[in-house]
């Protein structure tokens, strides 16, 4: 039923899209601006929102998320494959038929050999998720252990029928989601098996890189080999050129977009400019929901938060509405108590940590907070809040410090550089007690929040990449999540009910202080028309009209 509704939504989007698809809209140069580049330009390595937003216009996978706005943007559609395959063999086998006649921007044809090479390359270049997502492919574990000798026996190609058969070790309801993100890009068969760094790799998308300067910016032009095979998978795009410049602070970006020097800015609009843009440039402000939440993980393995009463005291004391103020107000953020954001499958509103427990947060419950604090015996315990130096993290950290001091802890706050904070708080060697961070979806699945952030497998002692920051591990909950993942493929409603149960269980364990879920604000120039926001890729630059 969900898929039918989504298809109808896509059709509606397509009809709406056609209204813009007249010749007058094509052409011009789209000017984007950000503070800095994001490292390697290799789509199988780079794991940043900044580059994923443009990779989706340059590269294609076998499948992709529909390049449209609204709920339809979270639906997987065929891209280089002719259709989205239904899994067979109890969900363990996928057969993809490759489209014919598609070429990379360097003129090479897209072949099944290129597909197989791209899958093997994921392991050879140490893709960040090779060990957590793609090792479900038969042979994936061996490839992880010995990447240079990776043959990936689970990927079987047949040049005659132009098919790729992928065998999995077990059913995985999120396998298609994981193929649809830019990591799943199909690259030429002769692409070297190492990080290509600043050298762009030819793709099949509507645009290709003309020049890339890691400290200056990117110039993207139309791919001469491209022809539109699916408007939803890879639309032709309106601008003839996309210039992505680096080097302006967020404050300067706002001014530049106001003055029509750039069409769109990547960074969030600083809090002190929100009133200005909402007052003077109302029509240029775009607010869209996003699966993204801010939270404060509490380390359940060291004092004082190895004591559940101490954690509960913090949960009841935090004023989520105040936190929302620090982010810019209710138009951009909503108070939250649970892990799953409101738009996520499996979400059922739940908030036990408030004055009137129920579906939503209403006010802090200080009497209960103080009672739990007294019960915990942790009064006078020293606590350090680790946060990022930039806004709003620093402000949230200072507020948390205030709450902890009022509870009876002796708290201080350490704002660290944004470059190191996220890894620092993950490493158990740093003995971080409580920190402030955020998490946004890779793709719309409850497991991307619950499994990734709270499973035993995500907790690695002494590692900078231990995303289970609370250090929580309960094999019973892991089993329940594994069951939900198995059910997701054939019984999504049952799976969602389990995810909801897990979400509420984890919330009741008080492992993190869930603060608020946020919406994404984009600020565009007055001359930019047809702003399109995808729930997966966010701003779709190729669908903007600048002429």
């Amino acid at each position, binding site marked *: 039923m969900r898929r039918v509704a989504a298809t109808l939504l896509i059709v509606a989007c397509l009809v709406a899209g056609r209204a813009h698809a007249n010749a007058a809209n094509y052409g011009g140069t789209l000017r984007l601006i950000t503070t800095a580049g994001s490292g390697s330009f290799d789509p199988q390595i780079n794991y940043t929102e900044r580059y994923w937003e443009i990779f989706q216009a340059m590269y294609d996978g076998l499948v992709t998320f529909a390049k449209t706005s609204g709920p339809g943007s979270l639906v997987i559609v065929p891209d280089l494959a002719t259709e989205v395959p239904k899994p067979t063999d109890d969900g363990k086998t996928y057969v993809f038929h490759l489209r014919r006649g598609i070429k990379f921007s360097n003129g090479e044809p897209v072949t099944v050999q290129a597909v197989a090479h791209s899958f093997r390359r994921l392991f050879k270049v140490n893709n960040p998720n090779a060990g957590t997502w793609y090792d479900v492919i038969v042979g994936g574990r061996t490839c992880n252990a010995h990447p240079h000798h990776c043959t990936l026996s689970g990927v079987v190609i047949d040049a005659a029928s132009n098919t790729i058969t992928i065998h999995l070790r077990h059913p995985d309801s999120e396998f298609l989601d994981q193929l649809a993100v830019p990591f799943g890009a199909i690259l030429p068969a002769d692409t070297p098996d190492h990080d290509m760094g600043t050298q762009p790799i030819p793709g099949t998308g509507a645009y290709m890189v003309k020049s890339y300067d890691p400290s200056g910016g990117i110039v993207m032009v139309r791919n001469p080999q491209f022809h539109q095979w699916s408007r939803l998978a890879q639309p032709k795009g309106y601008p003839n050129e996309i210039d992505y410049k680096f080097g302006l602070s967020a*404050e300067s970006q706002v001014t530049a977009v106001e003055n029509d020097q750039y069409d769109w800015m990547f960074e969030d609009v*600083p*809090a*002190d*400019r*929100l*009133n*200005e*843009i*909402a*007052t003077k440039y*109302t029509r240029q*402000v775009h*607010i869209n929901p996003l699966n993204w939440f801010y939270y404060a993980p509490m380390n359940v393995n060291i004092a004082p938060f190895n004591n559940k009463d101490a954690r509960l005291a913090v949960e009841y004391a935090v*004023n989520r*509405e*105040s936190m929302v*103020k*620090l982010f*810019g*107000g*209710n*138009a*951009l953020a909503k108070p939250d108590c649970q892990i799953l954001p409101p738009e996520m499958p499996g979400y059922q509103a739940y908030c036990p940590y408030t004055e009137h427990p129920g579906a939503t947060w209403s006010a802090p419950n200080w009497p209960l907070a103080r009672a739990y604090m007294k019960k915990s015996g942790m009064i006078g315990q020293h606590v350090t809040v680790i946060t990022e*130096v930039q*806004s709003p993290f*620093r*402000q949230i*950290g*200072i*507020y948390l*410090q*205030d*709450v902890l001091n*009022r509870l009876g802890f002796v708290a*201080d*706050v*350490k*704002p*660290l*550089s944004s470059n190191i904070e996220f890894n620092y708080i993950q490493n158990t060697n740093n003995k971080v007690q409580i920190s402030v961070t955020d998490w946004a979806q890779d793709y719309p699945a409850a497991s991307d929040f619950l499994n990734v952030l709270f499973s035993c497998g995500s907790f690695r002692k002494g590692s900078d990449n231990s995303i289970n920051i609370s250090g929580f591990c309960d094999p019973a909950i892991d089993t329940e999540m594994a069951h939900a993942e198995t059910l997701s493929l054939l019984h999504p409603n049952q799976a969602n009910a389990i995810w909801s149960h897990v979400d509420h269980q984890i919330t009741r364990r008080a492992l993190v202080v869930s603060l608020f879920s946020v919406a994404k*604000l984009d600020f565009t120039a007055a001359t930019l028309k047809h702003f399109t926001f995808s729930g997966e890729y966010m701003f779709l630059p190729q669908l903007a009209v600048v002429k």
Partner: protein
Amino acid sequence: MSEVSATDRDIAPPAPGYWAMAGRKLLRDRAAMISLAVLVIIALMCAAAPWYAAHIAHTNPFRSNLSGTVMRHGKPVEVLGAANNPLHLGIEPIGPSWRLGPYMLGADQQGRDVAARLLYGGGNSLIISFAAAAVCLVLAAITGILAGFFGGWVDRIISWLLDALWAFPVFLLAISLSVVLIAHGIDLGLFRLDASSLALPITIIGVIYVPYVARPVRGLVMGLRQSDYVLAAIGIGAPAWRILWFDILPNVISALVVFAPLIIALDLLTEAALSFLSIGVQPPAASWGTIIHDGESLIYTRPMVAIAPGLAIVITVLALNILGDGLRDALDPRAKLRN
């Protein structure tokens, strides 16, 4: 009787000492005296911060007040209110009332009284800069005097250490030390400094400027070492400590006094820079640098949060520099040659 009186008249009054003459010169320097008065007023205002917070601002400037209200024109107003625009975007801290009372200079992003924090922050900034200057001058005096007086391998080792310290750009060194030490402080067994202690920035800032004072002190002592009275003292077998204490140190102190205001001013600027970068004074404690940092994200809507501490730094540093000029004119006669 009359003879006695005549004899008394013939006896000239004792000549004023070096410090008395310098004091008189300084008192005649109007600019230096005004600067000194300004510094005293600033120090007294900062010392009165607890009283101001309790009796005038009626607030705890170290506690967040995100959901509080304050009376303005007889009506309760949110300290952090929603901005008035069609999209309901943004939150604005309450602005300055410009009257003695709560939120005279407005609120920061945590809803705290900026005026009260300015006074507390000034106290911390002045404590750090004066204490760091004291650390710097004492260390510089010890190293400079030892190197200049004893020469030989003592001089070589000390000079090598000072050169090594001098080789680093001063702000780069300060930032590097702060970044390294900010997470866990210093723990050298008996010598421990907590990361949130003011002693940490005092130590860092104090140490980084030592070569800038020790070098001139060393040069001065090398000259004094060859003077007749020191050579005579050595000749009659006076112990080294006695020569250093009674003959060298008194001559070095005047140079250190001239350096003091300039080093304090430098320390004040360095502290502000480190705190602005979040590697100096740690929240919720304030310094003028941390308040400027807080105000950076409010520069378009509530510029006073950043401007007020900025002005305080400018006035204090200007006063210190003018006082330093006055002290140099008073204590160093050669400076007259420049006029």
